[in-house]
């Protein structure tokens, strides 16, 4: 019975509940509040982005500046290291010069020292003297500076005697 009546109804006009559905199908914007969301404030976000951007730029700038500064320091330190290395080497050279056997020998000679020509030793364990202890004398001294080199023939004074006859002299006179 109810089936027949509904069929009859559909044949004539829209049922009342359908009208309501159609009425409901007219779409409207869902109010944000009904979905539980709030409208995001634009200003703080923009500020945040700007801050990050500015921070990045400033940070980069500072980083670059810092690196430049470090580079200056590195250059200065490098120069200093080079200078100190050079000074160390100069001092080493000076030290080597002082330790040069030639230098030592000359200093020893100036103190009047002479190398012994007869080695002799004292054995500490029993106090025995090994070898023949002989005092070194002036005759034992070894000449530590090489002797003067010979004068080259080129710088020998050569006296050239030219026999000048009176006639030649007369010719040469102005």
């Amino acid at each position, binding site marked *: 019975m109810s089936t027949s009546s509904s069929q009859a109804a559909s044949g004539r006009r829209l049922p009342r509940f359908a009208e309501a559905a159609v009425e409901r199908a007219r779409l409207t914007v869902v109010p944000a509040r009904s979905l539980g969301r709030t409208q995001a404030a634009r200003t703080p976000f923009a500020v945040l982005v700007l801050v990050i951007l500015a921070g990045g730029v400033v940070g980069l700038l500072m980083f670059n500046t810092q690196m430049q500064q470090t*580079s200056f320091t590195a250059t200065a330190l490098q120069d200093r290291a080079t200078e100190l290395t050079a000074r160390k080497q100069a001092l080493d*050279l000076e030290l*080597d010069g002082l330790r*040069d056997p030639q230098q030592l020998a000359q200093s020893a000679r100036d103190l009047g020292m002479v190398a012994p020509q*007869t080695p002799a*030793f004292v054995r500490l364990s029993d106090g025995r003297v*090994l070898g*023949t202890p002989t005092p070194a004398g002036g005759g034992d001294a070894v000449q530590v500076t090489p*002797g003067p080199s010979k004068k080259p023939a080129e710088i020998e004074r050569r006296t050239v005697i030219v026999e000048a006859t009176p006639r030649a002299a007369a010719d040469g006179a102005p």
Partner: protein
Amino acid sequence: MSPTRRSSRGTTHLRLRVALIGVAMLLSLFAGRLVQIQGIDAASYAARAESSGLVTLDLPAKRGRILDRNGEPLAESVAGLMVVADPQTTAPNADAIARILADRLDLDYFEVRDTLTEKDTRFAYVARRVPSTLASSVVAELREQELTGIDTRPDPLRSYPSGDVAGNVIGFLGENGKPAAGLELAFDDLLAGKDGRETYEVGGGNRIPLGDNTRVAPVDGKDLRLTIDRDVQWYAQRVLCNTVQTVQAESGVAVAMDTRTGELLALADCTGTEPGMTPAEVAEAQRKLVSSAVSDVYEPGSVQKVLTFSSLIDDGKVAPETKLTVPSELPVLDRVIGDWFDHGTLQMTVAGVVAQSSNIGTSIAAGQFTPQELHDHLTRFGLGQKTGVGLPGESRGLLTDASEWSVLSRAQIAFGQGLSVNALQMAAAVNALGNDGELVEPSIVEGRERTSSGQEVGTATATKRRAVSSEAARKTAEMMELVTTPDVGTAPGAGIQGYRVAGKTGTAQQAGGECRCYAMGGKAVSFGGFAPADDPRFTVYAMVNKPSIGGSGGGTTGPIFRKILAYLLQKYAVAPTGTLPPSIPTEWSTGQDLGVPSPSSLRPGQGEVDSEDLSDGADGTSGAPTAGSTTGSE
């Protein structure tokens, strides 16, 4: 109202259009310029940028040091700088700059001034290899006075802190920084290292942190450690050169080695430059100065006798006590062999022949050898072969094939004429007698190193081989002790009080002069030996070539030997062994037992032997004119 609006709109349109055209033209201009810069002129701009901001720096590798056996530097590289000028900038202030440079760098003022005013160049060397502290301070001083145009560049400086010590062995670096001689040349591959290179961008003198940056690190050269002892080398050089100058000799060589290991403690050369030498001759002398101990050969003379006699003993042909009858002269083929001292017929033992250095006695004893036997024995002592020490320019000497020997040449070679050796060969041969009969290859480099020519040398590669038996070496050493024994031997001046010293004198004539004969050549006097004789530690060999004043093995080179040996014994604290030398008879007489040595009978007419007498009368083969004629000329 409406016409006004239209006209205003028309003006706006016009303005926009004009602006658009203006902007378009400007942008086209920019675009055109962009194309020009990026497309057409790109390469030249890149080059300009590179030249202004990009720095390419050679990073010179530090050359390895050459050290002595105790690690003392004999050659080292230090940071040096070259001082360079830009003459276009310096020319206006040349006088002021030159004055400072000449003062501070010890240069010639006029030369510097010429350099600073050179035309058509922007680069000129003022000074090279200047110690960096000095160069920097000079440049700083110039900058203070606002004198521009002088700059520095890295230029490694080779320094020889011990001066001329071992200069003959080490060699040197030439003007261009390339090795010119000696070990610097022989071990260049090892010492040189590999240069690096660095490229980076600079701005205002500072490196740009994120700029282009490439770096190839330099590989520093390795150090070369020698067996040379700096102090011994210095002493040997001075002692040798004093003698060479005193006797007005042409040159001299002294070798000191560790008897057991063959390590060279000193290898000294001395070349006396003669007056009147041309620059070319001086240069030649300088070149020869480099290790002439291995490059120059000469006839060894009587030192050779100990090799002959040890070989004879080794073969059991003679013993130190073997009796020999030594005539006053010995005819061999067409020549007559004589001794350095006149004598009648002497009854000498083999030991006496060695002690008195008798040519005749040696020739008679060596007659027991066939030429091949003697040749083989001498080869075992290393004669005629390179020692393999690793110094450049080593000669092998000359020991002709036994098949070419006559009876005369066998007799002559037995006492050291008619063959040639270098000083190092002879030192090594004498050393074998001290080293229990074993010939040890001499070495000058510690460890194992490879020369630039690929030869491996050093103490680690030194080989030993037997030259004579231990017994023969010991007996020969005992005979050699007699040489330095006062009243018995030819060189009492070579002995050291308290020590047992074994040695042998040598005086050989050298072929030379225009005729390439002995008469025109000079003498080569030498002395070789070791101590303590019963437990040898050091072998010393000295040779003086062509002395003008006096000149005998005992009188001239004996004292060199003694001084160097005494220095070694003292420095290395080698105490005397405290044993007594065995008493070996040096003469014999019929109907009487072998007696103690009696000098009066050995050297008729002379009661005492002292070194003064010996310095005039040469010992050995050839001091006396008779020997000159007998040993012959070819």
